[in-house]
């Protein structure tokens, strides 16, 4: 993975020292809360319901074992022994003390980590395919380009005070695991007809109170022109974005108002002014690419007798292998996705002890590489098939072998009203209820891929708009109610779901999901996923069943 140089390291140490001084001035009363709040937010520190929350950046969801161990130890020392992985591949600590934060930032800086640009109206952490560099599906490694964006966008003076926050996603594979089409900018890597590398550029997607699947404004952007083109997009947005109205300030509103064609035209005009001198030199791209050079893989055959024998003897391992392994580009290797969705637990939470085990496994069996998914799971991207039984056993020993990736219990849920000061309703208990309802793994596998995404408010951190089944918590006269949407997708077939009907009280949500699943199992044809069946039948059979039950 990319290694910080001396300049990066010195900068992070200086920044942590600066925040220590700022916290000292706040505690001494030399600056007011109004003065301090923007400063702490620039360092990822929010004040939530029960305590401060620190959001730590995990650049493009990539971690090494030393970093994960430090996160584990911060959880143990300064929080309650756990951390929460978010839908933007970051990690949040929910029980942080202001007075401890300078020490925490020092600990992070020691392993090249920080909380910069995890808040505020700036360019946030770039989301990348968690299978980067491992999946057989990719045309190029998106981490190279994500790192280039990280360097370009970090503390970029022109783009530190945008009309609103700005999020970029990159997928190197046609199969999209980044929700690229609902980011401010989604970049989908392509090979041109002449074999050159480039991006399809999608701008103005987004969730929140006004969800959009972003339109493509450029079919093929040569890869080496990426930075100047991003600069042109940001410049048009910075100039015309609605600073007068927070709810209309995201780029999606501007693109929608101008139309994709006109927005694209303005970007082209701006891009022509910037010219190729606005791009990174090829030598710099090559230098960054060097940091992601292919690892030293052994030459293996694509079948492990040890693994096959172990699977035949252990149904739990066989089930884990069916659901949590993905094809690796090298023979004899696999991608292991570790579900943080154990039945009845909080989606995305990992204890410090679990993080330590994952770090150990990555070191011993996984080439020291760890990824975070936007669906709140962890990935060991490079494991030999021979080693899967040992990894599975070690994961099972700490409750991390839940075999449900992409199944109905592999839900996204935001922290919701249990933690978040913005939330209107809880999300976690709804996820727990649903997980218990579908705890039977045989039934979960029979249902197949079904993505449930739950948000505790319209800001949509839980991506409910793009859930095959989306659940939105709303506040009805102070009581928690939940609106269901169907037919959304955050993948390459992105779509915003449509509302099923009137909101339901909390205790009716899991039974309603059960009803929806029964309708799907009754209606489905062949290998259809829930989403495919819904798209074919439309909402009527689902709506009739849920509200017949409700009456």
């Amino acid at each position: 993975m990319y290694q910080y140089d001396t300049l990066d390291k010195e900068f992070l140490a200086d920044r942590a020292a600066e925040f220590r001084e700022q916290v000292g001035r706040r505690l001494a009363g030399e600056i007011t809360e109004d003065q301090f709040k923007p400063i702490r937010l620039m360092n990822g520190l929010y004040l939530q319901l029960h305590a401060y929350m620190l959001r730590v950046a995990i650049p493009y969801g990539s971690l090494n074992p030393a970093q994960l161990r430090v996160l584990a130890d911060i959880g143990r020392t300064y929080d309650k022994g756990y951390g929460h992985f978010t839908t933007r591949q970051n990690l949040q600590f929910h029980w942080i003390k202001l007075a401890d934060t300078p020490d925490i930032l020092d600990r992070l800086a020691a392993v090249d980590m920080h909380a910069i640009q995890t808040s505020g109206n700036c360019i946030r952490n770039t989301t990348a395919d968690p299978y980067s560099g491992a999946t057989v599906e990719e045309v190029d490694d998106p981490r190279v380009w994500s790192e280039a964006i990280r360097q370009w966008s970090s503390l970029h003076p022109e783009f530190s005070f945008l009309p609103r926050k700005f999020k970029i996603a990159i997928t190197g594979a046609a199969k999209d695991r980044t929700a690229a089409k609902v980011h401010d900018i989604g970049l989908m890597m392509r090979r041109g007809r002449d074999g050159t590398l480039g991006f399809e550029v999608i701008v103005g997607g987004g969730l929140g109170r006004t969800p959009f699947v972003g339109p493509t404004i450029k079919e093929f952007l040569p890869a080496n022109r990426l930075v100047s083109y991003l600069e042109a997009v940001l410049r048009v947005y910075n100039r015309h974005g609605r600073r007068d109205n927070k709810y209309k300030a995201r780029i999606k509103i501007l693109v929608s108002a101008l139309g994709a064609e006109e927005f694209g035209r303005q970007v082209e005009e701006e891009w022509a002014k910037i010219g190729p001198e606005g791009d990174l030199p090829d030598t710099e791209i090559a230098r960054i690419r060097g940091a992601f050079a292919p690892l030293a893989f052994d030459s293996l055959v694509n079948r492990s007798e040890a693994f096959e024998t172990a699977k035949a003897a252990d149904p739990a391992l066989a089930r884990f292998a069916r659901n949590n392994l993905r094809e690796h580009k090298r023979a004899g290797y696999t991608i292991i996705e570790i579900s943080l969705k154990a039945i009845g637990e909080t989606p995305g939470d990992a204890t410090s002890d679990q993080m330590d085990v994952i770090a150990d496994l990555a070191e011993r069996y996984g080439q020291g590489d760890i990824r975070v998914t936007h669906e709140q799971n962890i990935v060991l991207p490079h494991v030999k098939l021979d080693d899967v039984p040992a990894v599975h056993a070690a994961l099972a020993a700490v409750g991390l072998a839940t075999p449900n990736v992409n199944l109905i219990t592999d839900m996204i849920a935001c922290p919701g009203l249990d933690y978040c000061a913005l939330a209107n309703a809880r999300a976690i208990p709804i996820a727990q209820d649903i997980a218990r309802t579908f705890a039977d793994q045989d039934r979960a596998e029979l249902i197949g891929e079904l993505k449930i995404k739950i948000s505790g408010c319209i800001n949509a951190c839980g991506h409910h708009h793009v859930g095959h089944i989306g659940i939105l918590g709303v506040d009805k006269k102070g009581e928690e109610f939940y609106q269901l949407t169907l037919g959304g997708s955050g993948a390459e077939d992105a779509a915003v779901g449509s509302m099923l009907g009137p909101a339901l009280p909390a205790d009716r949500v899991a039974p309603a999901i059960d009803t929806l699943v029964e309708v799907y199992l009754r209606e489905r044809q062949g290998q259809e996923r829930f989403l495919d069946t819904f798209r074919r039948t439309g909402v009527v059979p689902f709506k009739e069943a849920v509200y017949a039950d409700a009456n």
Partner: protein
Amino acid sequence: MKALTGNRLTDGEVVFWKAGAWVERFADAELFADAEAGEAAEAHAKSQQTVIVDPYLIDLIESEGLWAPVSYRERLRALGPTNHLHHGKQAEGGAAIEALQHASGAARSKGRVNLIKR
């Protein structure tokens, strides 16, 4: 009936006003039957910039013979998260905590909605 609450500056802990000081348990909070007394305490609290962040008054209702915040959000603040029952103030247990857990009032919380912005 009202109480005065906020988050302590140094650690973010949820605290409640009691006669010029701040206590961690809702059960120990000073209760204001008189609107003017509550507002005077709030004004005083707002001057304690190095102690408390964004203090505000909350409405209360009766629950099992005790008082509880009307809004669910405020009851969560006074208890802790429902996904980790051993985290937060609820871990202590007892009659006062149970009364909060059983309270069923419903109203929008007015205090903290704009406290943080993403």
